[in-house]
């Protein structure tokens, strides 16, 4: 953002501020030091207080609760690492990790190529590029409840548009949220997020200096070769951001759309790790166990993000 022009009342004082005059500035005066020393804390305290009381302290409480057995009715009982030991023996836990990884991989392979392809087309598009971007981005601004309810209507086996249209071709009712629940979920969330990733990749593409393309074209490379040899390697940074967001999202905020659309069902078919965590607390009243899951979740995210960043950063490309 560009700062506004300097107001006229101040402009006349500006030339005074040459290095030679620095010693004359009021803050160096005797007494103003003591005054200034507590002022910064006045500025940061309100935010820090809220952050501490409603983010940091809960995080510490969560860590504490994870070492207890607690049903929220009786007082918590300290059981050490009991929850974590039970967790790593729970087949449902491994199952939900598997589902989460599947969800993350499916999201990556559907959204990234689509976002790249659309960004590539838009980078070539002269007319209406902004309008197309705005249209592709719309699903992103809907609340995940709205998206979930909307797609549960779309997926209705009798009145939903896909069912009706397929019905015209004699394809019987498809149980979208039954047998194909995970795929349907991935499709719905791809509809929400592809526009965001497309805008991100497009920003990365427009940041690539055009001279690189000129020289590539002189070498008579085909446009497909140019894309894979020039564009893609230079999109490293935006591709990294998209990948990190999708993978960490699968382990955290994927809960919103999943909860509204499938509640993790049928049975455990779409029980992503955050859903597993939520159900442990609010369906089974195992708050300690659930907290242990959330601790493991945060560690997973940190490790996965670390691996992704390392993988993308193996070789640096200078241009």
């Amino acid at each position, binding site marked *: *953002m560009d*700062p*506004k022009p300097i107001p006229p009342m101040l402009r006349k*004082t500006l030339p005074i*501020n040459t290095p030679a005059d620095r010693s004359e500035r*009021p803050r160096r005066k005797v007494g103003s030091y003591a*005054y200034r*020393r507590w002022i*910064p804390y006045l*500025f*940061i305290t*309100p*935010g*820090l207080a*809220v*952050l501490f*009381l*409603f*983010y940091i*302290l*809960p995080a510490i409480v*969560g860590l504490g609760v994870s070492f207890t057995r607690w049903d929220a009715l009786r007082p918590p009982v300290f059981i050490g690492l009991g929850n974590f030991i039970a967790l790593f023996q729970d087949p449902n836990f491994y199952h939900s990790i598997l589902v989460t990884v599947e969800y993350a991989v499916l999201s990556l392979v559907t959204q990234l190529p689509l976002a790249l392809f*659309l960004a590539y087309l838009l*980078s070539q598009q*002269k*007319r*209406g590029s*902004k309008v*197309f971007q705005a*249209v592709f*981005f*719309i699903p992103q*601004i809907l*609340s995940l*409840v*709205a998206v979930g309810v*909307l*797609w549960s209507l*779309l997926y209705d086996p009798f*009145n*939903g*548009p896909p069912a*009706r249209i397929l019905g015209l071709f004699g394809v019987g009712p498809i149980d979208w949220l039954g047998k194909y629940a995970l795929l349907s979920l991935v499709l719905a969330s791809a509809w929400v997020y592809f*526009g965001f990733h497309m805008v*991100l990749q*497009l*920003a990365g593409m*427009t940041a690539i200096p055009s001279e690189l*393309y000129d020289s*590539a074209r002189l070498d008579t490379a085909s446009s497909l070769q140019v894309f894979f040899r020039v564009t893609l390697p230079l999109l490293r940074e*935006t591709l990294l951001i998209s990948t990190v*967001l999708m993978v960490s999202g699968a382990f*955290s*905020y994927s809960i*919103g759309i999943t909860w509204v659309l499938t509640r993790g069902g049928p049975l455990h078919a779409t029980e992503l790790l*955050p859903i597993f965590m939520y159900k442990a*607390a609010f369906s089974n009243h195992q708050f300690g166990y659930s907290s242990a899951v959330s*601790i493991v*979740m*945060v560690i997973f995210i940190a490790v996965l993000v670390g691996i992704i960043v390392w993988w993308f950063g193996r070789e640096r490309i200078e241009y």
Partner: protein
Amino acid sequence: MTAQDMTFNGTRSGSNKGYFRTLFLIVFSVVTIYPIFWLATVALKDNRQFVQNPLGLPLHPTLESFRALLTDPAMLRYGFNSILVSVVSVLALMVFSSLAGYALARMDFRGKNIILMIYLTTQWIPLVTLIIPLLVTVQLYKIYGTYASLILPYIASGLGLATFMVRGFFRSIPHELLDSARLDGCNELQAFYKVMLPQIQSGLAVVAIIMFINNWNEYFIALTLVNREAMYTLPVGISTLSSMFGTDWPRLGAALFLSTLPTLLLYIFFSDVFMNSASRSVGFGGR
């Protein structure tokens, strides 16, 4: 360089390839927008029209579902709750983040780096992992079941991003401005309030829009930390409606539309803000 310069595959507009590209983009736009369009047609039908013809255009469009919702005291209550919670938390976020962002951008003090670290770290802990501990702490603070139990966590969850954005805006203002304000006899508070803050108005608006949409759409905290129906926000209200209304899809469609209206309006007027923050991967990750 603009997007227009990037004709690196050698095609110019006017070739067939350009037309195919435009055609493809139009088709894909239609596919993208179709679910929302269909929902609008559903909301404009009455129940009988919908059952007879779920896919077609509404032949006799009616606003009956919207009227029914807007006269439903429960829905109005949800709407009021959503507005109250979102507006108050955004206002508080503006105040807290501009104060902290200013101090972190323009002041030197002991512990500054630690505070920066704290802000960064909290951004890496997803809000969903804090649902249970938030429930515990909110009860501990004796604010369970009040608006504060939603507003304060919303402030805390948006604060990291908002503060870092504001800090960036303040850092882009030339140093001379602050020095001259001090020379003119402003004390630190006046310099902040009268000189520095007006400089970042448009940046603050961006932060406000992003924070408003995140809080307006938030679901899980609102679902968990609210213990009675009178406190439901729109997302929670609608998620319960969807099981309550059952087959009354027109009513459900209208409810989804009404709940999306504020964000949709913001999007129509400020779509550049959304694109810019998305191209810097800021803003909507937390939901």
